[in-house]
């Protein structure tokens, strides 16, 4: 099996997934939730079979005013959840207004239960968004340094760290892009659980990458005379069974959670599921391939056709 030989095909496949995602991002698909922007979210449940249409709810809430300012409550976003559930999102409002909304819904559509209310001040939201970006950046740097340290005895140890981070940047791009697409199609919002999923995937993806790198470490010592490309390919093939089996066991459990678990965490689980698959893919097909590209200094060839002396 020659995986490294087809490396540009695999890079291409990654781009095929990442580019539409980036387009979705450019179209504003990634919608930050109130965790990051501040706002109020209400999750209500109607009595079985009495769930109104979104338009009916919108009409019912048209006259609600915000208690503190006496202005009309505008821009309520509505989204169905599960069978009889409905999620309402809006600007940050006070408890009196929340009670007003619930009372109105209850009167208009029969009994309504409040499953969850979340009220986030705008300032704390902005801070969370900042910390979130910091958390991802910190994770990337910490992992690059750790991998570098773990492979310090190999020539060009820093390359391993950077390749590992490159493959996790791949996974982050896949996830954010897909979240963007799902945001456009289903109105999904990126909340702090989405970020948790991204960071978890980062951890797992590096997990897989290290297993492959570890085999390269071992094989380089074993086959001192073989070419780097050959050693890398051999290492990937040797660890392929393990990579696939581990990913399968994780995917089994996540799939069970996605299918049978509650609606609350489904979004989180699906993001984890996609991320785990992406992490396994990037570890098998991209991470080590980057090492080969680097070793051969292949970028010099990319631009030779263009005769750009500045890149030579």
């Amino acid at each position, binding site marked *: 099996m020659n995986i490294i030989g087809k490396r540009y095909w695999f890079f291409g496949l990654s781009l095929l997934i990442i580019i539409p995602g980036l387009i979705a991002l450019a179209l504003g698909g990634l919608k930050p939730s109130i965790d990051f922007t501040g706002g109020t979210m209400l999750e209500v*449940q109607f009595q079985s079979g009495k769930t109104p249409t979104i338009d009916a709810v919108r009409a019912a809430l048209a006259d609600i005013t915000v208690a503190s300012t006496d202005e009309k409550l505008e821009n309520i976003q509505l989204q169905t959840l599960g069978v009889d559930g409905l999620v309402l999102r809006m600007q940050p409002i006070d408890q009196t207004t929340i009670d007003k909304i619930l009372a109105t819904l209850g009167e208009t559509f029969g009994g309504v239960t409040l499953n969850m209310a979340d009220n986030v001040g705008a300032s704390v939201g902005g801070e969370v968004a900042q910390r979130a970006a910091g958390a991802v950046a910190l994770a990337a740097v910490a992992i690059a340094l750790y991998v570098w340290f773990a492979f310090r005895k190999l020539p060009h140890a820093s390359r391993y760290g950077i390749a590992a981070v490159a493959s996790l940047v791949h996974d982050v791009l896949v996830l954010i892009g897909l979240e963007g697409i799902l945001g456009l199609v289903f109105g999904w919002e990126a909340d702090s659980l989405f970020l948790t999923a991204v960071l978890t995937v980062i951890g797992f993806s590096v997990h897989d990458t290290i297993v492959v790198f570890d085999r390269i470490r071992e094989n380089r010592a074993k086959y001192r005379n073989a070419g780097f490309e050959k050693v890398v390919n051999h290492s990937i093939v040797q660890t392929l069974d393990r990579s696939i089996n581990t990913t399968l066991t994780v995917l089994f459990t996540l799939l069970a959670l996605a299918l049978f678990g509650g609606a609350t965490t489904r979004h989180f689980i699906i993001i984890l599921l996609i991320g785990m698959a992406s992490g396994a893919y990037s570890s098998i097909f991209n991470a080590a391939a980057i090492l080969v590209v680097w070793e051969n200094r292949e970028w010099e060839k990319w631009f030779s056709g263009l005769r750009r002396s500045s890149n030579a």
Partner: protein
Amino acid sequence: MSRYVTWVIVLIMILAIMVVNIPKNMKIAGQETRIRQGLDLQGGQQVLLEADLPAGQNVPAESMRVAAQVIENRVNALGVSEAVVQLSLPRRIVVELPGYDNPEEARKLIQNTGLLEFVETQYRIEDQTKIETDYLAPGVTAADATTAANLIFTPVFTPTRTPTNTPLPSPTMSFLEFATSEAATPGAATGPEVTQAPDRTAVPGVRYHTIMTGADLQSAVVGRDAANKPSVNFVLSSNGSNAFAAYTQNHVGWYLAIVLDKVVISCPVIHEAILGGSGTISGNFTNSEANQLAILLTYGAMPVPLKVIREQTVGPTLGQDSLRRSLIAGAIGLMAVVLFMLLYYRLPGVLADVALLLYALTSLTIYRLIPVTFTLPGIAGFILSVGMAVDANVLIFERMKEELRSGRPLREAVETGFSRAWPSIRDSNFSTLITCAILFWFGGTFGASIVKGFAVTLSVGVLVSMFTAILVTRNLLHLVLDRIDFSERHSWFGIAEETPSTTESAG
């Protein structure tokens, strides 16, 4: 080696006994569970508070600590079990009220500055005793209530504190003194425990008379008494000094209980009449005790103004339904993993499944011991870490298979499998621990116990999985495999006899 095996067996038994004890208390759809459930599971309320001071202003850590303590006392008095009040310095406090579902009440409870009362009593009441007073109590006549209404201690409306109405403090200082030596520990004023038992020395059912409230206290500062010991000097408003004078004149030798939110924080004896509107509370105070009492007297309970910056309420039904579904889903997922290991790796797979069982038992026990608060993502974290526990075994077994295929004897193959797989297990798990630490930090900054719960369960899982995969599986493999002649039992290992193929059916 047999020493290790015995050891592992004993461990399995201990863990099994510990976990078997859970079902007594664990009603999955009910409420009782020894493993703590997060808000998303049992419903409840989370409030994130921030010091309501200008952004640049330094918030003293001591004040925040006192504020958190006061909130904790009130929350405990509310009777919410497993309530959590967490200080997140420099300027935040996270309050979690599991199973509590009344946003309005909770907000009042937390933000209220507290009701400070001065209460008439003939006998000493011990600190931290909960008492009833007649201040705005049901049954008090409207006339009484109107006079009392002026005395309500609220931080926002404090019209009573107009200094123009106040006569100059008399130069004669009067004394309140502590009568007994135990009374000389007023530092317990903001102490952690509020006694649930209603009375210690207070007579049950007695409604004490409130002479005045904290609104009539103009200031309280730390000073020195005649013996040059720390004391608290206070100044009263005109309203207050009249009430005070009237009471102290006729009750020398009696006590004056200082009561915060119906809990006695100090009970000095009246040494002489206080007529001039100012006085001193002295006792065997340390500096910080006197300081604490002065803060309490001046600000009521809350040494810093707090505002709610995030509030989350979860209804009780949603969580229980989610929990049930997640547990079912988790069980199905685990069954799939167990079956997969069994079908793909055969005999070693069975042993890995045993190790997995031990892994699950150990993790659950540790979750109970820490204790870890279980949340929905936390359960997902646990289930994910099962995947990780399996991964260590998969790494080892794949390695073992390679060695077997290259013709090594079984015993040697097992050892090589372990020693070769170890560096990848170590390095890869360590990288996951790094991300867990970052997640924990991220979750901690804005009180996201859900994110934190996930990080904790996942990291416990990773650590335990390293232990079970290395120590337990290894010993089990030796115990079973050392007695087997591999040359006759290829199929037990999922290895074809003649054609070494890696693309075997995945079950």
